[in-house]
């Protein structure tokens, strides 16, 4: 910690340099956009992108697109957690379940979730079902594998100690096993979220829904609206960043960091 305090002036310099770099990149982009080498429709100036973003936010269409995308993503993600977490825990606890599901998981995992989109479209028709199922497929495997390794990596001493102090199966599970596997499970949630975020954008482009951030970007291509595309990209990046920092960061702080687990598991 003392190291960080002494690095403070250096840190300040990093922040200044980083800001300068961003400004410089923006200025370079602006200069290229205004120079007219490339058509304006393909490379819109930054104020125009910002204006489009504000317009879309003001008339509520951007919020609606974001809402639909988030709803699809969260439905698929929740489904993946509901299936993947118990399955992973069971695989870690019961030999027979592990023997049965591990080969299946290893065989299905390397297939990209988006490759299933056309098959799912044939089976379930165009629409939300496909997007939700593809998201679920994308998020399922990181969830299962992380829960599985998490349960297996719980310190044997803790289990024995709790057993010796008279904990029954349920107490052992809720008080020792689940908190012990929490660092892995949270890492799994994080990975699953990233994968489902990618999957939902891709799926929306292909399943041609009426609303959704992926759809806006794809649709804007038809009309050469590069400003709409860049504005939607900014929103997609911002949502991903917020989830990563706020949701998972605070989840981690409230659980494993507070319990001292992240260090305890390593030590």
């Amino acid at each position, binding site marked *: 910690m003392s190291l960080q305090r002494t690095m403070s002036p*250096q840190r300040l310099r990093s922040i200044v340099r980083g800001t300068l770099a*961003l400004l410089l990149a923006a200025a370079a982009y602006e200069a290229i956009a205004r120079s007219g080498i490339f058509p304006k429709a393909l490379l819109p100036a930054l104020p125009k992108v910002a204006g489009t973003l504000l317009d879309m936010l003001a008339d509520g269409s951007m919020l609606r697109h974001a809402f639909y995308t988030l709803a699809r993503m969260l439905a698929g993600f929740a489904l993946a957690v509901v299936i993947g977490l118990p399955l992973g825990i069971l695989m870690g*606890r019961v030999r027979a379940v592990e023997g049965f599901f591990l080969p299946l998981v290893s065989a299905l995992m390397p297939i990209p979730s988006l490759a299933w989109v*056309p*098959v799912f479209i044939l089976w379930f028709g165009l629409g939300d079902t496909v997007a939700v199922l593809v998201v679920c497929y994308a998020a399922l495997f990181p969830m299962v594998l992380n829960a599985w390794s998490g349960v297996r990596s719980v310190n044997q001493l803790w289990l024995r100690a709790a057993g010796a102090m008279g904990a029954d199966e349920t107490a052992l599970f809720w008080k020792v096993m689940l908190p012990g596997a929490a660092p892995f499970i949270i890492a799994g949630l994080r990975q699953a979220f990233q994968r489902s975020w990618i999957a939902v954008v*891709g799926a929306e*482009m292909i399943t041609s829904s009426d609303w959704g951030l*992926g759809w806006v970007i794809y649709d804007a291509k038809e009309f050469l609206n590069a400003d709409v595309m860049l504005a939607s*990209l900014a929103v*997609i990046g911002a949502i991903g960043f917020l989830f990563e920092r706020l949701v998972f960061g605070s989840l981690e702080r409230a659980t494993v960091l507070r319990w001292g687990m992240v260090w305890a598991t390593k030590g």
Partner: protein
Amino acid sequence: MQETVSDARPGPEPAQGRSGAQARWQAAARTALPFLVVGVLWEITAHLGQFPPRLFPPLEDVAAALVRLTVAGILPRHAAETLLRLLVGFGLAAIVGVGLGIVMGRSRLAEDVLLPLVSIGAPIPGAAYAPLFLLWFGLGNISAVLLVGFVATFPIIFNTWTGVKAVKEIWVRSAQAMGADQSRLFRLVILPGALPYILAGLRLGLAQAWRILVVVELLAAVPWGLGWLIFGAREFLNTDVMLAAIVVIGAIGLVLENLVFRRLEQSTVVRWGMMVA
């Protein structure tokens, strides 16, 4: 694991007593069992006639499609084009990503300048960039390769950067004390020291590239490629072709991950004792 201990004792002893061959056969059977169960369930569902066979073909149709397309040379050509695109894009990403990562790890100025740019670009899903790339570079191979490379670059940069920063200070100091110049320091200490991280980054990058390539092939409308094969087959309701292509995609992914990278790891970082296999 309590149950592992109790399980292990009665199980393998007789098998171990005879020969390793029988134990291996048992292991293979145990791996095959879940696939058999799923296959039989699939067959029953397909033959019940609940769903139209065009949409839910029995496995023998999928296998027939796989054999037919392979013999006709269509499937290998699709796979070859996809792999070529993957390798070119990934090669670009590896060169740019490892280069930038090393520069960022060694120079404070480069780190301060590049890190914010990289951190902003990284969290946006690759597919979201696809229409933008198509608009800028047109339909076809250039867009596909550039997009795949672009997506794969981020994990490679991050891991290389972390790896270079994680090289033990004491190794660098002792190499310098023994009179290593800049280029030898880099080649003999920093590069091998950062290699476990770099390999992990390459692995992540390849996995991301592989995941995005299928959808890129559809959107970029390239004439050949496994992704295109799947989406093209949808138009004609050829579910058996789609499933056959998915099987090939899964197999290639498995081979890339297990054979290529595990081999590479075995022959470098594991052999040097920097990582446990």
